[in-house]
């Protein structure tokens, strides 16, 4: 499938533990929906200059409980808008994890990789092969399988649901 999310190769940007979604995208910007407008405020107080350092295709690495707090999907939109294409963490909050997967941003859970990945250096995340690689070191994260893998294979939950609804409509038309 053309939209499928799989291999991401980019530079690593490291953050610490317990990064909440208020830190990723503060509440006062939540009436905004335009990705560029949201990206302009991404991590603005926790990591000033983050937005300027990130290039399209880069990888965010963080510690425990990443994305905890508010369910705001704006946080994921903001990270994608600045160019982040994969996230590696020790652990992620449930709603953030789902939001990211739903928008085609893979979140790989690997305490070892999250500890070992070097800042500013290039790494490769492969969803289907289930590997994270940097400078010849390979880590194996918790595999993204089942519905999560199916969503990423479609490029996101919007695309997956669109396919399901279209298939259903086709069936209804045949039966009707």
């Amino acid at each position, binding site marked *: 499938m053309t939209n499928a999310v799989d291999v991401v190769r980019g530079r690593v940007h490291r953050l610490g533990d*317990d990064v*909440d979604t*208020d*830190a990723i995208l*503060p*509440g*006062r910007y*939540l*009436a*905004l*929906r335009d990705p560029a407008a949201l990206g302009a405020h991404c991590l603005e*107080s*926790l990591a000033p200059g983050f937005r300027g350092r990130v290039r399209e295709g880069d990888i965010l690495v963080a510690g*425990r*409980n990443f994305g*905890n*707090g*508010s*369910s*705001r*999907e*704006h946080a*994921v*939109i903001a990270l994608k808008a600045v160019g982040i294409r994969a996230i590696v963490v020790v*652990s992620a*909050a*449930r*709603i953030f994890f*789902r*939001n990211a997967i*739903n*928008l085609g941003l893979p979140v790989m859970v690997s305490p070892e990789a999250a500890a070992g990945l070097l800042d500013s250096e290039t790494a490769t995340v492969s969803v289907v092969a289930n590997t994270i690689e940097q400078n010849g070191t390979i880590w194996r994260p918790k595999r993204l399988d*089942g*519905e999560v893998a199916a969503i990423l294979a479609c490029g*996101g*939950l*919007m695309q997956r*649901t*669109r396919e*399901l*609804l*279209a298939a259903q409509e086709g069936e209804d038309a045949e039966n009707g």
Partner: protein
Amino acid sequence: MSPRTIAEKIIATHAIEGFVAAGGIATVTPDILMLNDVSGPLAFEQFDAMGAKAPAEPARVVLIADHFAPASNIDSATAIGALRGFARKHGLAHFHEPGRGGIEHTLLDELGLVGHGSIVFGADSHTCTAGAFNALGIGFGSTDLAAALATGRLWLRVPETIRVELTGEPGRYVTGKDVILHVIRQIGVDGAADAALEFGGPGLAGLGMDARMAIANMAVEAGADTCAFEGDAASTAHMAHRGRAACAPVLPDADAVYRARLEINLSGLSPIVACPPSPGAGVTVAELRGQRVDQVYVGNCANGTMTDLRQVAEVLRGRRIGEHVRMIVVPATQRIWREALAEGLLDIIAAAGAAISTPTCGACFGGHMGILAAGEIAIATTNRNFRGRMGHPDSQVFLASAWVAAASAVAGEIVSPESLEAVP
């Protein structure tokens, strides 16, 4: 059938696919789908992009304008307009805005839309508040809710359960807020990750429905997927009061399997304040002696109830708010606002020098109506004190009960109501 916790039982009755035991994946049809003016507009864009024509279950959809309502600027007016437009287009009965609404989680109960054994999927992390009513509230993001709107179902991983056994009776100034702040400082801000928090035990009898809401509301601050209180006589009476058909409470099986157990003797608790920037950083009020506050905020989806307003009025009756402090009080719904007016609470609060606002999320998430400037310190009955949550990244928020917040408004520093001088 294997023994089950409350969460497993409620999910089982709503699952259309999947084996329902902790760790398994289930496809679930919720009773209610709730979205607000922040999560809704994004969800509707996704809903349209999915090619969905109409919600699968329009009668189950509840749209509430609360975060930026009444609109704080043109962007938020546009967002609320998107919510209103979706409701009109699809003929939804449940669209609520200021003057006839309130903050979503409080309003949902007030509307009688949640009760024993029901499931709410909400595009808001504090949907777990529904746990107070022996229901399951599960928070999601906008795209998940868009898919649920379109198809009437959503997949989830069935959480393990952590059992919190309550015993004893709380002291005069010990509230639901203190119970949950105690739980979070004990297990940590991700201590309940991938789990449901289940509350029950003999101590439940000493906690009213408002206190239970304050507890369930902050389950997500312990990282919980969801929360469930045992149903009892109080929740049964409450359901009748809200006009819901009677239905038996869902209780856990005696031999249900728990990831962990916690026992809390309510009589041993004292008021707790969570220090910035973590809801898990709870300390006793005494440890904060001398801590200055610039703003006191009483409100939010679980602590803008009649119980909270009565506590505030009791402290403020015959007293004045400190000279260098400002206080903002936000009844959570229009009905609570009117009830507090009729009971004379709003007059006592206003006479003491507090500003009373229309129901809104407002400053709770740093939206509007009480934003903090750099260097300012607030004490609030809200649920998050992350850096910059209520405004400038260099402002600070302490979390506490309405008792402690009101007493601190009088003193200008964090104190317990006991330490205020008696009113002459």
